[in-house]
């Protein structure tokens, strides 16, 4: 695998702390596609918006992670919208020699330096670049109805993200189409999930999640590509559907859905038992 090692995996805080299933499915899927990936030792928070909301020093954190990747000579693979956005914005900011000099003064104390060489790509971007291989690898076409929710910060600002369309991205549609699954159009695929509202105003966040889930009702599963989306739309469904548990909808991470279509076993992808039952498959098959 080292011969095609291209990326260092950047989980971000939320996936590292609470969503090992997303990391697992990402690693299993990329391994199946022959895309080399290694962990990023000593990675930190990406800086935005958690630190950016308080200080311009967020850029030191983002640049620190870029420096770790650069030292390894690898590009960064992200799986959340906010980390992708933060690291891409920092990489752009580092083009300014004054910013770069200031950042490197800070990083020097840690024995690091950064030029901004390491590219930052969200999993969706990497998968789109390998969709021919992905298409060839589908061995277990899915007979599922799938609703989608796009991770907004992966695509915006458009001139920073430089991937897909900033207002009407289509990459998730294209990837799911490869699996044989039927896509259920919800009309709110491109709307922000609202998960970041949860720490400021819980009722507002829950109504945002409810709106998206209600629009997805004709689907067997909702598929996301971001830890923040997943946190609100999957982990908070108990609160969203308080008193209406029958409305709960299974939610998968994109690499879980794609991994299933590649014939990987559900438990290898961290897919929960309710979806396994929908698929009519054994968890170990």
């Amino acid at each position: 695998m080292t011969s095609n090692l291209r990326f260092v995996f950047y989980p971000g805080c939320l996936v590292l702390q609470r969503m090992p299933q997303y990391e697992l499915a990402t690693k299993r899927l990329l391994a199946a596609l022959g895309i080399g990936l290694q962990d990023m030792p000593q990675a930190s928070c990406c800086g935005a918006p958690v630190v950016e909301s308080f200080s311009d020093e967020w850029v030191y954190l983002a640049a620190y992670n870029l420096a770790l990747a650069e030292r390894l000579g690898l590009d960064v693979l992200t799986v959340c919208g906010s980390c992708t956005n933060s690291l891409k914005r920092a990489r752009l900011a580092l083009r300014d020699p004054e910013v770069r000099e200031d950042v490197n003064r800070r990083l020097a104390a840690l024995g690091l330096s950064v030029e901004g060489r390491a590219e930052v790509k969200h999993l969706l971007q990497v998968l789109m670049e390998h969709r021919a291989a992905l298409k060839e690898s589908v061995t277990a076409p899915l007979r599922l109805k799938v609703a989608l929710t796009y991770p907004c910060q992966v695509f915006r600002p458009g001139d920073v993200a430089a991937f897909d369309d900033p207002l009407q991205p289509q990459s998730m549609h294209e990837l799911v189409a490869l699996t044989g699954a039927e896509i259920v159009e919800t009309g709110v695929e491109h709307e922000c999930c609202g998960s970041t509202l949860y720490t400021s105003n819980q009722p507002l966040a829950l109504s945002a999640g409810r709106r998206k889930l209600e629009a997805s009702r004709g689907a067997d599963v909702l598929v996301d590509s971001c830890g923040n989306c997943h946190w609100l739309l999957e982990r908070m469904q108990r609160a969203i559907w308080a008193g209406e548990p029958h409305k709960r909808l299974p939610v998968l991470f994109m690499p879980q859905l794609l991994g299933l279509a590649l014939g990987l076993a559900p438990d290898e992808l961290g897919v929960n038992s309710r979806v396994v039952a929908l698929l009519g498959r054994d968890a170990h098959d």
Partner: protein
Amino acid sequence: MIENCTHCGLCREVCPAEKLGGRTITSLLSGGDEYSAWLCCCCQLCQEVCPEGVDIHQVMMCERRREPAPDPHRRSFENVLRYGYAFPITEDINAMRSAHGLDPVELISAEQVRLLLHCL
């Protein structure tokens, strides 16, 4: 920057928080007087559609620094200063990782965090 804002209100029309009844900085930009920049979802849609190219994300981040921060946000910030992550992530994480078939990860040290963010 914000001086270029013509108060056309397009940002408010597309804002997901505004659609749900929240009043964010986009209300300020289009002439509102009750708002909180902490209700911004950071989806950056407002910025993408702004006909004047206002860096609304930057405006919102500046506004957040003027407003009192909600407790959960402040706790996340303090977690970063202490642990290097928005959550109190410690070596214990590796037991959970192991249970999911993931290799242990080496975390950033408190000293590294201090060297990075010692001015905060």
